[in-house]
C-alpha cells in the first residue's frame, strides 16, 4: 500500500527543487555554486519515505517481498537523469590559483572496482545472483564444455595438418556465454576473433563451425577466409576480419543506424586489450559518446596480446579507465565469472537501449591458450603461470562449482558431457573434411554485387588456363559449376 500523500510529496518536492536549481542557469550564480540537478540536491536534503509515511512494519515488509519477486532485486543507484545529455565537462571546471591544484595525477584516481558474484569455487558471494532457470544454466555449462573441447581438438587437428590455422578461447568461456545470454538475437554483434561461444549460443552449430574451418562449400563465407573467420547474417554476427579493431567504429555506425530506425536494439563489439591500442578504437569511443550511439564496447582484457603482456600495452587504469575520458559509463567485471558478466552485460544493454548511450565493459580474464596455432606461449611465459591460473580461476570449474552446490551437476554427468561433446566435434570435423570445396567461380563473385567487365575477362582467362591443365589443380575437390 503506497501512502498516497508520501508518494505524491516526494515528486512535488523534486519539482520544487528542480525549479530552484533552474535559477542556477544564470551564469553569475552558477559560478558561485556548482550543481544543476535535483538528484544531487536530494542527497543534501535526504528525504526518506519513512519520515512521512506509515511506520507500519507490515507495509515495509510487503514492499521488500514484492521487490524480491521481480527479476532483479538490486539497483545500481545510477543517476539516470540526462544520462545521455552531451555535456562538456570542462565547463564545470573550478578555477584555482595554485598550479598544484590543477595538475591531475593519474595515480590519485582509484581504479574501477571489479564486480564478482561467485568466487573461484562457485560459491555465491553477492546477493545479485541473476534469476536463471536450471535448464538454461545447464545448457550454458554444456556449451562452455563444447567450446573448450572443440578448442582442444582443433589445436591437435591443426598440428596434424588437417586444418591450416586455429585460435582457441580457452579460459574465456564465461565471457562468451555471460554476454551472449544477456543479448537479444536482434542485437548486432561485431566480434574480433575470440568469440566462438557467442555465435555458438546464437545458433551456429559445430557443423557450421567445421565447415568454415575446412573452407568447404557449405561455409557461409564461401571458403574465402582463414579458419575462425565465421559470420552469419541470420545470427546478426558480422563476419570476423583479421585487421584488429576495424570493427569498433563500424559497430558504432551500425548502432547509430539502429537508433535512427528507432529499434529497441543495440550493437555489441568485442575486442582485446591489445586491439584497444589501435587507432580505430579511439575515434570509435569518441564518436559513440559524442553522437550518442547505443553500442556496448566489450573489452576482453586477457592479459596478453600474442607475446605482449598488458604491462607493455598501456599505462592507465586498464581500458575501462579510458571510458570516462570519452564521456562514457564503464563497468569492470570478473571475466571468468559467468553470472557477473551476465549481470553486467544485461545492465549495460539496458542503459544502451533505454538511453541510446554507449557503455564500456572490461572483463578481466586470462588467455590460457596460445594466441593461435602459429604461436607457442612457452617462449614468452612460463607454463607454471598458465597452469596456476587454469587450476585456480577456471570459468567452467566456477560455474560447475555453483551447479554442484545447487545439486544440478555431478562428476559423472560432467564426464559424460565432455566425452559426448568430443565425439560430436570429431564427427562434425570428419564430415566437413569430406565435403567438397566451393565452386571455382566463387573466386570471382561477391567482389561487387555483379561481376564487372574486367572480372568477366579474368574469369574467362582462368577457365581457358584450367582447360589446358585439367589435372594439375585438383578441380575434383571443388563443387562443379
Amino acid at each position, binding site marked *: 500500500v503506497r501512502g498516497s500523500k508520501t508518494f505524491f510529496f516526494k515528486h512535488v518536492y523534486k519539482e520544487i527543487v528542480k525549479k530552484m536549481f533552474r535559477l542556477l542557469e544564470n551564469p553569475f550564480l552558477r559560478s558561485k555554486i556548482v550543481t544543476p540537478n535535483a538528484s544531487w540536491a536530494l542527497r543534501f536534503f535526504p528525504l526518506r519515505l519513512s519520515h512521512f509515511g506509515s511506520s507500519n512494519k507490515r507495509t515495509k515488509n510487503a514492499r521488500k517481498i514484492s521487490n524480491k519477486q521481480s527479476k532483479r532485486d538490486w539497483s545500481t543507484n545510477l543517476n539516470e537523469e540526462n544520462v545521455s545529455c552531451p555535456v562538456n565537462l570542462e565547463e564545470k571546471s573550478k578555477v584555482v590559483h595554485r598550479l598544484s591544484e590543477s595538475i591531475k595525477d593519474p595515480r590519485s584516481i582509484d581504479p574501477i572496482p571489479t564486480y564478482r558474484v561467485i568466487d573461484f569455487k562457485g560459491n555465491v558471494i553477492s546477493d545479485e545472483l541473476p534469476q536463471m532457470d536450471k535448464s538454461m544454466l545447464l545448457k550454458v555449462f554444456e556449451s562452455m564444455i563444447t567450446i573448450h573441447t572443440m578448442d582442444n581438438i582443433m589445436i591437435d587437428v591443426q598440428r596434424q595438418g588437417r586444418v591450416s590455422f586455429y585460435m582457441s578461447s580457452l579460459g574465456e568461456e564465461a565471457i562468451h556465454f555471460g554476454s551472449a545470454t544477456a543479448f537479444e538475437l536482434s542485437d548486432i554483434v561485431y566480434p574480433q576473433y575470440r568469440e566462438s561461444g557467442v555465435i555458438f549460443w546464437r545458433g551456429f552449430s559445430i557443423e557450421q563451425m567445421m565447415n568454415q574451418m575446412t573452407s568447404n562449400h557449405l561455409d557461409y563465407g564461401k571458403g574465402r577466409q582463414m579458419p575462425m573467420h565465421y559470420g552469419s547474417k541470420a545470427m546478426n554476427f558480422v563476419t570476423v576480419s583479421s*585487421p584488429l579493431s*576495424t570493427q569498433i*567504429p563500424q559497430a558504432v*555506425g*551500425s548502432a547509430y543506424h539502429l537508433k535512427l530506425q528507432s529499434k529497441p536494439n543495440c550493437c555489441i563489439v568485442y575486442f582485446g586489450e591489445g586491439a584497444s591500442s589501435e587507432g580505430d578504437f579511439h575515434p570509435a569511443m*569518441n564518436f559513440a559518446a559524442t553522437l550518442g550511439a547505443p553500442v556496448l564496447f566489450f573489452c576482453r582484457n586477457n592479459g596478453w596480446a600474442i607475446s605482449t603482456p598488458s604491462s607493455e600495452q598501456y599505462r592507465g587504469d586498464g581500458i575501462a579507465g579510458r571510458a570516462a575520458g570519452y564521456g562514457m559509463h564503464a563497468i569492470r567485471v570478473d571475466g571468468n565469472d559467468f553470472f557477473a558478466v551476465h549481470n553486467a552485460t544485461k545492465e549495460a544493454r539496458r542503459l544502451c537501449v533505454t538511453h541510446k548511450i554507449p557503455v564500456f565493459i572490461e572483463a578481466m580474464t586470462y588467455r590460457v591458450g596460445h594466441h593461435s596455432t602459429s604461436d607457442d606461449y612457452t617462449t614468452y611465459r612460463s607454463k607454471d603461470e598458465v597452469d596456476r591460473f587454469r587450476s585456480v580461476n577456471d570459468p567452467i570449474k566456477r560455474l560447475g562449482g555453483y551447479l554442484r552446490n545447487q545439486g544440478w551437476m555431478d562428476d559423472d554427468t560432467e564426464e559424460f558431457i565432455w566425452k559426448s561433446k568430443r565425439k560430436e566435434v570429431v564427427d562434425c570435423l570428419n564430415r566437413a573434411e569430406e565435403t567438397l570445396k566451393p565452386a571455382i567461380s566463387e573466386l570471382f563473385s561477391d567482389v*561487387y554485387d555483379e561481376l564487372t567487365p574486367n572480372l568477366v575477362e579474368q574469369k574467362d582467362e582462368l577457365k581457358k588456363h584450367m582447360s589446358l591443365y585439367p589435372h594439375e589443380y585438383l578441380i575434383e575437390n571443388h563443387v562443379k559449376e
Partner: protein
Amino acid sequence: MKALLSRRYIPKKSPLSTLFFRSSTFSPTAVKAETPSADTQHLTGKREKLNLVSAINNALHIALESDQTVCAFGEDVTFGGVFRASLGLRNRFGPDRVFNTPLSEQGIVGFAIGLAAAGGKPIAEIQFADYIFPAFDQLVNEAAKFRYRSGNEFDCGGLVVRAPYGAVGHGGLYHSQSPEAYFCHTAGLKVVVPATPIEAKGLLLASIQERNPVVFLEPKWLYRSLSELVPLEPYEIPLGKARIYREGKDATVVGWGAQLHVLDRACSMAKERHGIECELINLRTLLPWDKQTVIESVKKTGRLIISHEAPKTCGFAAEISASIQEACFTYLEAPILRVCGYDTPFPLIFEKFYRPDELKNFEAIKNTVHFDFSTEL
C-alpha cells in the same frame, strides 16, 4: 595564320556552348567546344544554371529527401561545409541525419561502413582527398572486402565517400592531391570522378543507389568555375560508362575530372592550328573503367594519349596504357603517351610547371600524330 601569329590564343566561342566557364588562372579564356550533354537531353523539366558544387548540393538534397535511410556527415558539414556542398541540409533534414562528426577520417569512414552494413546509406564527406589516408585501412581492408569475405552475408553497398580532389591553384602538397590510383588498385571499391555539373549530380545519385561502396572524387577546381544548365529533377548517369566528349579520327585522348577541360582546350588548339581531330573520352568511372569504349576509339584512331594531374609513375594512366596495348597492339600507330604530373609531391609555387596543362597536352597530340616509325628505327 592569325591564330598562329597572335601571342595569346583566343578560340572562337561557339553559339551552342552549354558550359559556362569563369576564367581560370592558367588558360587565356576558358571556353567550351559544343558538345551537348547527351546524358540529360531527354529530360524536359526545369533547369537551372548551377556550378559543380551546387549540383552536388542539389543531388544531396534529392537523396536525403527521397530515402529516409540516407544520412550525410563529416567534418563541418552542418554549417554548409567548407565548400558549401552541404548547404541547407541540416535545417531541412535534422540533426539525426545531417551532423558533424569529431575530427577523424578513420572514424568517419569506419562509422560509415558500419552504418551501411546495418542497412543505411551514409554519404561520408572527407574534407580534402589529401586527408583520406587515415581512412585507407577501413576503405581497402574493410569496405572493399566486406561482401567478399562474408560470402555475401553482409555488405556495405550503401556507402559513398565523397572527397574534393585535385589542383586548385594554390593548394600545395596537401590540398591538391589526386589519390584515385590507390583506390583503383582495390578490388571491391568503385571510383567515380565527374567532370561537369550535370555529371556530378547524375553520378552522385547513381553512386548513392549503387549497391557497392563508392569513392566519389569531386574536382574542386571546377566547384565554382564551371556552370551548366542542370535539370532540377532527379536523374542518374550509369556508372562504368565513359562518354565521348568530342568525336574525332586522328587521336584518342582520355581524361577525367578537371583535366578533361584542359584536354578539351588542347584538342581545340590541335584542331585550330593543325587540323588534328582528336576523340576526347571522359572516363567518368575509373573503377571499373569503360575499356570497351576506349578500345573502339583506339582501333579507329590508332593513337592514344592519357592525361591526369596525379604523378606519372603508377598513376591510373599506366593501367589504361597497359590494357590498351594488350588489346590494340596491332592497331597502334604510335606509342601510347601519358601526360601527367611529375613524380614529386604537389608543389605550391611550381604548380604551373607541375601541372600537365593544355600546352603539354597539345605537344603530346602533335607528337603522337606526327610520330614516324622510320625515324625511331
